[in-house]
């Protein structure tokens, strides 16, 4: 087995709501290996986003966290942005509407890589090229509303990887986009992770999408981890009835794969 980036040990998260506390995650034990592509799947409300926020240490202040997340792959406690990059679901709302694209992409790099203003913008330019924004020079000076949904999500990805994080978390990065654009975004993420040697945690509803490129799959339900394992094994012989029902409901073998497995 390869070395571990992170270990979740008995991780529980609850949000205090009106008197009683509701658990969004319950006693989760999960390992994340260095360099792997891990897909997290589960239905709405199963705690996927909560898990992602906990990994990036950006849970809302009122959330209560129990258990531990250890980071054997990092020498220290992870710093948001620097060690963990985050791509949100809706690029329409995850970009600041009144800040120039160049500044938004550069600000993480400037903060964590200690770049000056012009070096930051240069980094932003090369990132926009990496995520294949047309005319990146002009895009630096643009604002989010001037871009299409897919382009905005590419920009958001550029923001997330600006400080060269070890772990990239993408929380349903394609569910606000149409099918064709979805495929492009997934291909882009796949390529970036490969080239940079990043670890990817990819959250999705869609087991079909996940099986396309993930090394491992972790299935969540009601805040608990149902099962986790190599994609092939989970698909071929799921141990849990719940996983079987997900596979039965989602995989349509007639539809073409979005990207070919490596």
């Amino acid at each position: 087995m390869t070395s571990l980036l992170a270990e979740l040990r008995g991780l529980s998260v609850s949000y205090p709501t009106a008197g009683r506390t509701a658990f969004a995650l319950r006693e989760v034990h999960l390992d994340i290996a260095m360099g792997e592509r891990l897909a997290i799947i589960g239905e709405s409300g199963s705690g996927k986003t909560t898990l992602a926020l906990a990994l990036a240490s950006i849970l809302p202040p009122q959330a209560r966290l129990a258990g531990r997340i250890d980071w054997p792959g990092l020498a220290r406690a992870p710093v948001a942005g620097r060690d963990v990059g985050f791509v949100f679901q809706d690029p329409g709302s995850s970009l600041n509407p009144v800040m120039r694209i160049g500044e938004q992409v550069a600000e993480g790099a400037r903060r964590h890589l200690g770049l000056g203003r012009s070096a930051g913008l240069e980094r932003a330019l090369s990132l926009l090229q990496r995520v294949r924004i047309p005319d990146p020079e002009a895009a630096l000076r643009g604002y989010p509303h001037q871009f299409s949904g897919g382009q905005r999500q590419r920009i958001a990805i550029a923001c997330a990887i600006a400080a060269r994080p070890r772990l990239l978390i993408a929380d349903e990065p394609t569910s606000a986009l149409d099918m064709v654009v979805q495929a492009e975004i997934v291909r882009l993420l796949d390529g970036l992770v490969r080239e940079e040697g990043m670890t990817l945690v990819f959250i999705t509803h869609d087991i079909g999408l996940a099986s396309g490129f993930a090394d491992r799959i972790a299935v969540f339900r009601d805040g608990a981890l149902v099962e986790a394992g190599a994609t092939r094994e989970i698909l071929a012989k799921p141990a849990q009835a719940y996983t079987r029902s997900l596979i039965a409901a989602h995989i349509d073998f007639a539809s073409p794969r979005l990207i070919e497995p490596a």
Partner: protein
Amino acid sequence: MNRALKLVGRRAVSSIPVLLIVVVGTFFLLELASGDAVDAYLVSLGGGDAELARSLRESYGLDRSPLHRLWLYTSSLARLDLGWSVAFNRPILDLILERLPNTLWLMGSATAMAFALGTLLGILAGARPGSAADRVLSIGSLALYAVPSFWLGLVLSLIFAVQLRWFPTAGIETIASGKTGLDRALDISRHLVLPVCALGFIYLALFLRMMRAGMAEVWRQDFVLAARAKGLARSRIVLSHVARNALLPLVTMLGLQAATMLGGSVVIESVFAIPGFGRLAHEAVAARDAPLLMGIIVSSAVLVVLVNLLVDLAYAALDPRVGAGEPAS
């Protein structure tokens, strides 16, 4: 900038019918009052002869139909002829233009003070919702918001002018001081401190409360979470992301409050004996000079329209989404 200018041009054109409505409205008020305007004038002269009365009635068009008078009134306004002030025995336009600068200084400084301090304190309150600073500022601003400006002016002048003698009690500058240049500017600003505070504090409270509420709203947005995910310094998240977006509605409010503030300057200029536009209105009322009062109303409406156009320009500069057509790329 092109898109902003286009927008402002559109707004300017659309405010023409609105200004016309204001003109018609003031005309009706004038009709209500002007029946006795000639008589009042004649009385002020100690009774005049019939010839003078007739020529006056003719110049007011009192011998014509109301519709004709409305036409006379509107067309002379369009020629920038606001009529003649009986009380001051001067053209109304001259009077207004002479008084306007003082009021513009007063309102401009009050707006700048209220906007700057209000946003600053609002950011302080909104940076950590529910913190001690937030509670103190929100209660303090509510209390300030309830203070009548003219009374605040009296209290301030009692404390800082009468008791402590830090500032003068009245006027816009020391009379016949012979000061020029920087000295004169300093003199005027010393005179303006108390009136600016009296006029502006209520708006300071308003801007503070709006900023605080706006920031609470913006904190819930996705892009703020994204900024946290980038690991930015808290000050940068608060200023560049939260406050920057929460500022936009305040700019709109700046335009909406222009009319209210112009009204407020009437009382403040009376309290501090500032020879401005608002005090002119009070003097017009005291002298029962209805044409002057209506001229003041029409020109204040024009002023408010102009301020709103400026605010539109500022807003367009601050919000790149304004007037955006199709995506650029």
